């Protein structure tokens, strides 16, 4: 008989247990399943592999891929390859963290609860907001939740979102808005920036929120001061989606009067892993505290006055409120939030500024090199670690050429914007060396 290392029952155990239950065979426990719907025979799936063969097979699949550690990459667009301190993975492998459920029993979950309380603090600090929740699935779904929350809070039905917001985030927003019967209006982009006159023109009494990204999808720094004035002329909420690393050098959205700041903590310690799982964050002003979706950890004390942490304000949540809940979200990305916290602790207050500055510097250096090689950098607007270049050929052709040099090129913007043929979104993080950037620029310069 085939044996399995995760299944501890012996034949004798099985017999003893069946006897206690008072049945003769295992099959007797399944008599309540109607014969017509019983599955007979074996599932038509691949046979089990022993551990050695399994490693070989999984290694084979992994090795079919080009990974960004072996191939220097200039891809960003919402997912970034950054420095990950070794300590992050080591701490995440403490299995008391990863094999635990949601901390419903606080007495034996203080580690997780405190870790999340620290995460909430770090996100609130970075964004300049009063408080943050325990995390969301990812940046784009957090953005969609912010839109839903704004409609609930303001009782208004129209969402204004800039076309300079990540296209996939807008797509997720569209799907969510349909569920809630909300109207989404996309605000035009002009020179890679939100078109403020169009925003003003679309603003109405029915506007629930104004959503922009900072730095935006093209890497450019939006004028939050001006947008806030438009967003707050009525009762609508001002929602900003933000790469948290950029807030090491940029004035945080909280300083500009944002009501909600969302984004993804992936730049802090979370590998790109083909786009997920990452770690959405959701930060708000105190006024919106009781409207926040997802879980919140709060500080309290035990009978002896000892500091401790619990899940709190649960009256918002689905397991208590069922159909009256503020959102259907049950889980979050607790383990990734913990990983991001460990990374933020390691990078620290000064490391954050240094790391963010390096991104600005490296991206600037790349722009200069590209210009030297005759490549057009499309905009003069200040950027963080991304910018757009114009190429004489399709991005696909250019990227194929880069791949011949073992370089993964940037994003083809025509994938999302029909009018952006031959435009490439380039990301340059602190991990790109001078040599890699020089080679990238030189290959691009050689494209006719």
């Amino acid at each position, binding site marked *: 008989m085939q044996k399995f290392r995760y299944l501890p029952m012996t034949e004798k155990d099985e017999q003893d247990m069946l006897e206690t239950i008072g049945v003769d065979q295992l099959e007797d*426990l399944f008599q309540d399943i109607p014969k017509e719907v019983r599955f007979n025979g074996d599932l038509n799936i*691949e046979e089990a592999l022993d551990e050695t063969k399994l490693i070989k097979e999984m290694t084979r699949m992994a090795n079919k891929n080009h990974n960004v550690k072996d191939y220097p990459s200039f891809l960003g667009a919402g997912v970034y390859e950054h420095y990950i301190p070794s300590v992050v993975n080591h701490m995440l492998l403490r299995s008391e963290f990863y094999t635990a459920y949601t901390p419903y029993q606080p007495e034996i979950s203080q580690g997780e609860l405190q870790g999340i309380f620290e995460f909430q603090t770090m996100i609130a600090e970075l964004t300049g907001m009063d408080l943050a929740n325990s995390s969301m699935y990812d940046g784009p779904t957090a953005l969609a939740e912010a839109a839903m929350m704004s409609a609930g809070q303001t009782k208004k039905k129209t969402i204004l979102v800039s076309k300079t917001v990540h296209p996939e985030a807008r797509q997720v927003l569209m799907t969510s808005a349909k569920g809630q019967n909300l109207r989404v209006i996309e605000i035009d982009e002009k020179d890679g920036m939100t078109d403020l006159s169009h925003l003003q023109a679309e603003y109405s009494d029915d506007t629930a929120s104004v959503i922009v990204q900072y730095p935006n999808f093209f890497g450019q720094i939006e004028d939050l001061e001006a947008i806030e004035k438009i967003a707050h002329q009525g009762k609508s909420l001002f929602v900003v989606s933000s790469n948290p690393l950029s807030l090491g050098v940029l004035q945080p959205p909280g300083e500009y009067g944002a009501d909600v700041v969302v984004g993804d903590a992936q730049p802090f310690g979370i590998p790109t892993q083909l786009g997920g799982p990452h770690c959405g964050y959701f930060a708000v002003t105190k006024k919106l505290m009781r409207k926040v979706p997802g879980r919140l950890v709060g500080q309290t004390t035990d009978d002896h006055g000892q500091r401790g942490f619990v899940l709190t304000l649960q009256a918002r949540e689905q397991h208590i409120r069922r159909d009256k809940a503020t959102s259907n979200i049950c889980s979050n990305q607790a383990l990734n939030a913990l990983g991001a916290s460990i990374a933020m602790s390691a990078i620290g207050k000064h490391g954050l500024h240094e790391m963010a500055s390096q991104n600005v510097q490296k991206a600037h250096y790349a722009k200069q090199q590209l210009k030297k090689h005759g490549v057009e950098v499309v905009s003069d607007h200040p950027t963080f670690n991304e910018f757009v270049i114009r190429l004489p050929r399709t991005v696909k052709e250019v990227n194929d050429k880069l791949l011949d040099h073992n370089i993964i090129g940037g994003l083809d913007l025509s994938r999302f914007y029909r009018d952006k043929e031959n435009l490439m979104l380039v990301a340059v993080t602190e991990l790109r060396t001078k040599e890699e950037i020089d080679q990238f620029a030189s290959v691009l310069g050689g494209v006719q």
Partner: protein
Amino acid sequence: MNEKNQSLIFELSKEGRVGHSLPEIDIEETAMDELIPAKFQRTKSPELPEVSELQIVRHYTALSKRNHGVDSGFYPLGSCTMKYNPKINEDVARYPGFAHLHPYQDESTIQGALELMYKLQRTLEEITGMDQVTLQPAAGAHGEWTGLMLIRAYHEANGDTQRTKVIVPDSSHGTNPASAIVAGFDAVTVKSNDQGLVDMDHLRELAGDDTAALMLTNPNTLGLFEEQIIEMAEIIHEAGGKLYYDGANSNAILGITRPGDMGFDVVHLNLHKTFTTPHGGGGPGSGPVGVKHDLVPYLPVPLVVKKDETYRLDYDVPETIGRVKPYYGNFGINVRAYTYIRTMGPVGLRKVSEYAVLNANYMLRRLEPYFDTPYTQHCKHEFVLSGKRQKKLGVRTLDMAKRLLDFGYHPPTIYFPINVEECLMVEPTETESKETLDEFCDAMIQIAKEAEETPEVVQEAPHHTVIDRLDETTAARKPILRYQKV
């Protein structure tokens, strides 16, 4: 032992310490003001901690010791399937060829990843008996919402816009009615009968022209198989509605019965329950959704398809509900689930469910003499006890749960499902040995005796944890949700 006083990472901070080794800058720097105008530059640094690497290690190691996971001890949390999370899954997910891929790489450079996703889709289709699976949804609740949006798109395409009601049993997970609302439906509750199963007469009353779907967990949250499933499917389908399978309890049915064969039109799976990916203290999970052929045209994009020997991301789904998640779902989690499925194969997966059911029934029969059991038939992978008898002695279910902490166990799910008084919902899973089940039953029996003889021992529990019962009322009335430097 664990320290009573646990500092926050911020309290360890001292100006000038570092815990990182950032790349050395190898280019000539430009003054920041030339790159980013001063008005956009941050004026006040965020208060991240300044700590050394060893301080970080000690801090998070100390936190981990104040946390209970499956690796620490038995975790019979009903409806959560807290089974062993295999170590090799963690190794594989960290292979650079999986962990360090960018979602916008050219498809030719991620063929291995696409192959894995494609094979996982096919495998989950076979396990659930559905025609097409999408790996997009991030978690169970996200899968529920996705599935309901598909049903909505289907009804709308048929001009059935009057189908606004989603029927959910009173024993259902809270996410079911919440997801129905978020997908733009109204939730209506169907009652359970005294055997813990859906009240068929009530279901007949509710089903009609306005029915969009029935959401059902089978076995249900009481651990009971809805024996009338064929008739239920008929009622809903005759009314023109769709049948939604909440896969939270799939651990009972692998290779034994399939939602597709039971008549379900949509199913979501929780890979973090049935397929051993770690719960991670509340995520990340993964919630793939499978559908029958008539819902395929509405699936979220992209799907992974295979043509000749090449794998591709397919965005050509004309009536798609759109995108539900950026990129391609929680790939890192899907890698773990696929690794597990390849470890078990068809025979192993069936044994998983057989033993999960054996273990639950064994515990039920051992505990039956000491606790009220509202439902006495054979259970599936989990069962419920009621603490009514102990409540009469002044000992609540919450007290018994806290007392279990003293024995080193995570307690069962309590006060859920809501239709059972003083409920304890126990799910042992198949990865626990008979010895562990026996030790836990012995502890439960001792607590039942304590409730009779020395109730204060239970009422005042826990006695051996790092912290006592916490003041949750004050936490909610005067919320402190972040640290602030004094």
